[in-house]
């Protein structure tokens, strides 16, 4: 996986070329939209209400258009002028600000009903200038964000942590700033579909929302030890119905698209072919 944050600081990496690429590449667009939809879902906004949202690292406003579609009003903040220019060309409805979220969020207390960010936070884990201290920048982001969120509002950050130290750093700084909540991992079994969300809550610890693709993580109690001695499930006869069902189940756990199980699954062709 390529890590653009190792190549250059965001305001330099996202130049005019890169900004255009970002808004024309359909694969990137789809990932961005999907992540933004999931972020909005995790925000758990009150239904049938127009909310004021903050998009941190809004870029060309792809994630903002998702909140527009759900009928919300949004403000976007980004450090790259080129990306914001593209957003203006796309005529997004949200108001845009050019600024560094690592220096704090410059809004009045209690402004927003929610804040979200799609693949931005990992940029803050790097020190691009000698004056940058990632922990300090994350703390000033979280503490000022907490101040400008309304009561019971949430903030959701989808990001790509490089290693466990980065997740620890991010979570510990968010807690230090006074947020509740923690890390949510969708599709933890799959290397490709795995996605990290930092779900931050204000006003009391509430249960974390459920992650996607984790239905089979719970181990049921069994009194029979014999089951274990039978050997592993992968010893099934290849191409048998059981083997196919198991394989499909495994794909589903990894979040891949899989056809439904039906009575025809694993049945031989009639021979007319």
């Amino acid at each position, binding site marked *: 996986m390529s890590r653009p944050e190792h190549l250059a600081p965001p305001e330099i990496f996202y130049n005019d070329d890169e900004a255009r690429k970002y808004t024309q590449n359909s694969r990137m667009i789809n990932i961005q939209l999907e992540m933004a939809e999931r972020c909005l879902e995790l925000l758990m906004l009150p239904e049938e209400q127009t909310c004021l949202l903050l998009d941190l690292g809004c870029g060309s406003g792809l994630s903002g258009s998702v909140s527009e579609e759900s009928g919300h009003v949004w403000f976007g903040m980004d450090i790259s002028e080129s990306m914001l220019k593209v957003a*203006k060309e796309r005529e997004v409805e949200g108001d845009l600000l*050019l600024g560094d979220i690592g220096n704090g969020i410059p809004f*009045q207390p209690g402004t927003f009903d929610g804040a979200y960010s799609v693949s931005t936070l990992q940029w803050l884990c790097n020190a691009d200038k000698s004056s940058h201290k990632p922990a300090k920048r994350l703390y000033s982001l979280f503490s000022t964000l907490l101040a400008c969120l309304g009561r019971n509002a949430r903030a959701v950050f989808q990001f790509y942590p490089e290693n466990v130290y980065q997740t620890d750093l991010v979570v510990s700084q968010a807690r230090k700033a006074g947020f509740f909540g923690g890390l949510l991992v969708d599709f933890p079994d799959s290397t490709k579909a795995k996605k990290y969300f930092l779900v931050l809550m204000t006003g009391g610890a509430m249960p974390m929302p459920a992650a996607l693709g984790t239905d089979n993580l719970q181990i049921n109690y069994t009194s029979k030890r014999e089951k274990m001695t039978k050997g592993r499930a992968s010893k099934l006869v290849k191409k048998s119905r059981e083997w196919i069902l198991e394989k499909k189940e495994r794909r589903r756990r990894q979040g891949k698209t899989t056809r439904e199980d039906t009575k025809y699954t694993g049945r031989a062709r009639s021979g007319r072919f």
Partner: protein
Amino acid sequence: MKLLTHNLLSSKCLKGVKVGYPLRIVAKDVKISESEYNMEFVLKMIPKLDWKVLVNAAEQIGHGNNLPIELIEDYEDDEELLKKIHHVLMEVEVINGELICPETQRIFPISAGIPNLLLNEDEVS
């Protein structure tokens, strides 16, 4: 930049600034764009807004729109007023101009409708 954003924005990220609100606004170009009227959203935002700041900002950029200096108490039923507020908040956009910090007089330029709030290294608190 819409006046809704201006009403909620401060410059307290600057080193040494305590309140940083309201930012003074100087407009060179102003554009009127159309935006769908959403009464529920306007009603929701009014308690969050600083009314005097809104009236002043609207007058400073020449789109005062005859807003009352004091917000009347039963504004909820006055649809004409709500539509005026919606127009000032959501449809009047500053394209080129400046925002000025009330405490340090630091100038934040607005170009192509985007205010530039980037700070120099020595201004970060």
